């Protein structure tokens, strides 16, 4: 009936999907919140640390350093869309500043995040200091757009 290869493939797919299912179910609220914080602090924060000094004229435009920050951001933020399940509004131990509006107004949340994403992609195309300086403020405004509506104020 099935060749050895076919059987092996099917078993593999099954094992993978079960594994993925377990992995998905194992994503507790605390894990999701931790992942969100890591993406914020290390991912977005890293880009800010590389970009803001350029904006303020304290550092020169350095495409390699920026690229490294973007890559780090991608690595730590790539599963972003998986971290907002309805059961992640509160953690067991992890504190979160996420506001209920994220879940009561998911379309607004997606739109705000999308606005940031578009600006971010546009900034990454910058090839020199002038085009970078022109593109970056829209990214920061994207951060603000989300933080104003969907993040509780920080102490």
């Amino acid at each position, binding site marked *: 009936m099935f060749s050895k290869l076919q059987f092996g493939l099917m078993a593999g797919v099954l094992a993978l999907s079960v594994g993925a299912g377990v992995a998905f179910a194992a994503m507790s609220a605390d894990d999701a919140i931790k992942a969100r914080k890591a993406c914020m602090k290390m991912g977005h924060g890293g880009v800010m640390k590389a970009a803001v000094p350029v904006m303020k004229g304290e550092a020169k435009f350095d495409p390699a350093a920026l690229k490294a920050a973007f890559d780090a951001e991608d690595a730590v933020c790539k599963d972003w869309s998986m971290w907002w399940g309805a059961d992640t509004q509160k953690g067991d131990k992890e504190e979160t500043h996420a*506001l209920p509006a994220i879940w009561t107004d998911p379309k607004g949340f997606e739109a705000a995040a999308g606005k940031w994403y578009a600006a971010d992609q546009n900034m990454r195309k910058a090839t020199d200091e002038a085009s970078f300086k022109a593109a970056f403020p829209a990214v920061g*405004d994207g951060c*603000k757009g989300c933080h104003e509506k969907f993040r*509780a*104020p920080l102490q």
Partner: protein
Amino acid sequence: MRRKLQILVALALLGFGAFWAVTTPTPVMPEMPPVRTANLENGKLLFNVGGCISCHKAGEGLTDVAAGLPAGGKPLKTPIGTLYPPNLTPDPETGLGSWKFYEFEAAMQQGLHRDGSNLIPAFPYGSYRSMKPEDVADLFAYLQSLPSVKNQVPPHDVFGLKIMRRGLKFWKARALANPVWQPDASKSESWNRGAYLVNGPGHCQECHTPRDLFMMSDASRAFMGGPHPEGKGTVPSLLRLVERKRYKDQADLVSAFQNGESFGYEHMSSGGMGEVQTNLSKLPEADLNAISEYLLSLK
């Protein structure tokens, strides 16, 4: 039993009668308007310091020009219910067009509507009390110079609003008993300018100073932050901003006001601060320097 009930009813009526008598509104008395030419530029500056547009924004359905004007009606959700801040444009029927300066002044500095009723202190007249009369006059002139928008805002959706407006007389008797802001001759001119903008028109303490049981600003904990008035989260303290490594120095704080999160100042967003920052970014740099000098002196 019956007799007890009668006494109880009588007492209740008496109590209500006393409440009614004590809380009867004081009429707004006309005063001579100041004889001077209004400075519209200064009025606009105060409009931005106060961030009037943030609450008096045009509600849904108003577009184009009106959307950028303080035409009112955008719902403001508060713990006591939903408020609909009024139209501040000079439309004679639905805005301030038929208001006299002394009526505007009574609203700004005494929390009195021109019909004599008490205004809900979501409108921060406790801070505006400290504004100089000439600044109130310039702000009024600026509002009257805006394009007129016809927009009848809905009535506030607050349970027992009429009784509450009367009861506010007690609240005001205590809340407005504190002295208004006074300059400090031992400090620099720019420190005093900053202190005035922060404590008067800027009304920063309305959120950054916690409130006591009676919802009154607790002067003993000035600028120490506390629970956010609109619900979730904490309003940050404004004390020792440099020592706590929030800002490097005065220039850094000025840059934060000017650029906000578009330069990565992430504490300038959330909880309404983003809008405040947008409004403050329109101020002249000298005033932002003054505000920052004052804020960084708070320990």
